[in-house]
């Protein structure tokens, strides 16, 4: 059995886990991150990517609102390439309670959120696709944030500072020595190799799955899972975040995210033992599209690319209420104090917006336990790629000869790291994913530097297969490149091609009508009718190695 010794162990590769890993690394603490799937594959990657201004919480949860606006300002400095400062609107529809508008203004004042009333005309100028029948509008400093990029940048920075990252590695148990947790037992889910990692402190940052981790250490911790569903539409139907100005409910936000827009969100209670099997329900899609259309009428004429859902990591504090009413506040648990189990802390609750703050809190406690006296530096230290302000025109000039669309898209995704990716060799900027302008060079970089183990991972780092065709042309090409760059054997490549298309299918299935169905027919025709991928026989593990 493989054995790793380190100072700190972080369980969970979501934004909080990755942020904690980075925070610790910045303080000089050696750390190992263990993630059962891919980074940002859980709740982190399954939200609508809103860079909250806090306005949404201002009326119900002032504390969260204040946290949001504080972190909003910090992230705009340290994570430039993961963020778009689009601005946001809160619009009142004819059927909405008009008094909420005034209430929101007032509470934003308490929270310190710059919230400005704009005329309907002005709102339509800011966002021309908006429903022209709105009655009132507010402008707020909402923005968008890409959770995949954010998490990946945190991990990359940590790794460059010496941290170790084990993805696709599941924790099978906490190793205890008396009343202390001293390490974790885990298994590489791809190779089957078992290993043990020992460290002075274990940070459980596994979100909703933290209940299982605690259970394996003999600790009772109850999560309150609540499902949120969203749909993605084919193109960026709005350039400004559009919120509905009413008491939070289903389908009241449309967020532009890179080349697409997302309509969010629903809220449904789910049983804890079902959290890995949740799917989007038919009625949720209908609700989201109906409400979305009220905000932006073009929604009804646009292709829906996919639907997906995530589980909110709320800790049940008291009673059983609707998921939305529970505070999304941060919960930091020192299990030494709570459960008399040393060496283990849990960080949970919160939201993507406050990942950095949560990481800071977890790392502060971890460092205290490790007796490391270093201050948190994540408020000021920019993430890799975000060191300087992004200037598209300059980059385009620097890379003369390479199409603007390629330069712009690469810069957008990787910030300053574009210099490590693009160069003027034709192979480097040959397009692989034609919808999202992902080049062979970007894939090579991701394979070598960004902990990519399969095409699904590659998608999270690059947006390959996230455009209208959902991987129809690029999935096969990407599978080929895994072999070309020695990142997989031919047999593994075949398998990951199936896995990738099945993963895409999960999100397409609930929205299978119209052009999405045509696209699927075509894609299925290519991969089954033409390639016979469904007929490929995958031998038992090890047979081909």
């Amino acid at each position: 059995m493989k054995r790793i010794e380190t100072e700190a162990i972080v369980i969970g590769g979501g934004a909080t886990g990755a942020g904690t890993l980075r925070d610790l690394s910045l303080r000089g603490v050696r750390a190992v991150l263990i993630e059962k799937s891919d980074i940002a594959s859980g709740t982190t990657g399954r939200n609508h990517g809103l860079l909250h201004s806090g306005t949404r919480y201002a009326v119900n949860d002032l504390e969260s609102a204040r946290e949001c606006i504080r972190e909003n300002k910090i992230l705009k400095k340290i994570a430039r390439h993961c963020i778009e400062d689009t601005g946001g609107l809160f619009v009142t529809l004819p059927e909405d309670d008009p008094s909420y508008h005034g209430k929101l203004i007032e509470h934003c004042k308490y929270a310190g959120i710059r919230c400005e009333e704009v005329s309907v005309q002005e709102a339509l100028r800011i966002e021309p696709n908006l429903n022209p029948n709105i009655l009132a509008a507010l402008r707020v400093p909402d923005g968008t944030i890409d959770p995949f990029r954010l998490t990946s940048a945190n991990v990359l920075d940590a790794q460059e500072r010496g941290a170790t990252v084990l993805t696709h590695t599941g924790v099978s148990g906490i190793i205890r020595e008396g009343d202390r947790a001293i390490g974790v037992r885990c298994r590489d889910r791809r190779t089957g190799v078992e290993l043990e990692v020992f460290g002075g402190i274990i940070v459980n940052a596994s979100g909703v799955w933290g209940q299982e981790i605690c259970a394996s250490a003999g600790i009772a911790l109850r999560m309150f899972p609540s499902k949120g569903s969203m749909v993605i539409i084919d193109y960026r139907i709005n350039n400004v975040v559009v919120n509905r100005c009413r008491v939070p409910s289903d389908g009241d936000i449309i967020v532009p995210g890179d080349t697409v827009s997302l309509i969010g969100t629903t809220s449904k209670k789910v049983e804890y033992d079902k959290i890995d099997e949740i799917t989007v329900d038919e009625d949720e899609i209908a609700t989201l599209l109906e409400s979305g259309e009220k905000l932006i009428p073009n929604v009804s004429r646009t292709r829906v690319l996919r639907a997906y859902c995530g589980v909110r990591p709320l800790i049940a504090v008291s009673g059983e209420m609707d998921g939305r009413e529970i505070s999304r506040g941060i919960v930091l648990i020192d299990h030494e104090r709570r459960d008399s189990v040393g060496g283990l802390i849990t960080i949970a609750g919160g939201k993507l917006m406050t990942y950095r703050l949560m990481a800071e809190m977890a790392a502060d406690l971890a460092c205290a336990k490790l007796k490391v006296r270093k201050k948190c530096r994540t408020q000021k230290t920019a993430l890799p790629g975000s060191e300087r302000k992004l200037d598209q025109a300059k980059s385009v000039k620097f890379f003369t000869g390479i199409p603007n669309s390629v330069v712009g898209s690469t810069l957008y995704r990787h910030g300053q790291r574009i210099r490590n990716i693009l160069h003027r060799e034709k192979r480097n900027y040959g397009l692989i994913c034609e919808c999202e302008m992902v080049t062979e060079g970007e894939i090579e970089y991701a394979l070598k530097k960004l902990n990519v183990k399969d095409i699904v991972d590659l998608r999270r780092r690059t947006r390959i297969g996230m455009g209208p065709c959902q991987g129809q042309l690029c999935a096969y090409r990407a599978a080929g490149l895994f072999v070309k760059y020695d990142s997989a054997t031919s047999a593994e490549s075949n398998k990951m091609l199936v896995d990738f298309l099945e993963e895409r299918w999960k999100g397409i299935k609930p929205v299978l009508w119209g052009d999405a169905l045509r696209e699927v027919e075509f894609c299925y025709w290519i991969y089954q009718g033409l390639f016979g991928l469904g007929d490929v026989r995958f031998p038992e593990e090890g047979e081909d190695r």
Partner: protein
Amino acid sequence: MRYDCVIIGGGLSGLTCGIRLAEKGARCAVISTGMSALHFSSGSIDLFGNEGEGKIVFRPFEYLEKFIGSNPLHPYARCGSSRVREALFYFRDQLDLEDIDLYNNDDANHFHVTTLGTLKPTFFSQRSVFNEKIRLAFEKKSKIAALNFEGYRDFYPELAVINLKRNVLFRNIEISSGKILYPDYGDPQRNPFEYRSIDIARIFDTERYLEDLAAQIRTAAGDAAFAAMPAFLGITNFKRHHQLLQQLTGLLIYEIPTLPPSILGMRIDNALKSRFAALGGVYIAGDTVRGGTIAGGRLESVFTENGGSSALYAGSFVLASGSFFSGGLVSEFSRVREPVFGLRVYSHAERSKWHAQEFFPRNGHPFLEFGVETDERFNPLTDDGQRLGNLYCTGALLPHYNPIREGSGGGVAVSTGYRAAELILAGNR
């Protein structure tokens, strides 16, 4: 404008029908919204390849005899197996006139190799995919070299070789892989890492580069007897240049269908259009039929997007507008409809039953079996139950068969297209 027959849809089925009609002297027009699904096909004509549950059909005509009895709604059942045979061989003869030779393994299916090295049973294939020489060389377990252009992003031989090597049929056959380089043809701006099969097909269509390419293939193939390459060996000069390449290299040059566009399919598309035109058929491209006038159980005329109010009149009409992909069927949030005439459609009321749970299910996706309901003469019903006696539905528009699961798409398109032509001709006599 008046024609004897107006055919809506210019794909495999519509053109087969048009050729048969035009050959018999009917004045025909084909109206096609865009290019047909042939552009993405394997370029082989499948008849019936799979029974389901992974069982392969080896003798398709024999299989059809009993299959038809238990599947009376299947388009083949409505044609009858002897007519299916007649249609397929008619089709082969027509392509032959356009210099596309199709080969069959007598009455048995043969396999063609896919991009991922799986084998697909099919009935007719082009000269670079199946013929007697290929069969003999394969039986002799001759060595195969899988070749590709350096930097071509749409083919990775390694992914195919691993699957071929696992196949019992390829046991004891040596397979190597190798690279060849694009000829220098003078435009330094192009990024060869973005070539599509069509760009390379144009290189092969130009005689100038053939010797250089042949020399490279010869070297890269080493002592192999086969050079297997992605299908990009030209379109317009394919037959001649394929022969020439085989002479120059002394190898059997084999083609594997690629990511779209499919050169193998385009050859058939070109040949069919050219044959149709030679017989005096009118091909109207880039126009969409929007509706028609129906009176007394007959379709009198159709009007198109470009034509505006001026209609196209004909004695008979054929609807060969394809499946969802080609726009023959349209799916909405909660229903499936036929967009031109609002014909009665076979589908499921519940959307969640349109598809299987996996993307690669054992028994295919139900939506592939949706289509326009017809009687045994391929006449459809309008939504209000009126039978249209002079409108014939053919090809992928038809329900009750699964082209991908069965491996029957090409055969159904050809035989129903041909059958519609025969019915129209019989009606006129």
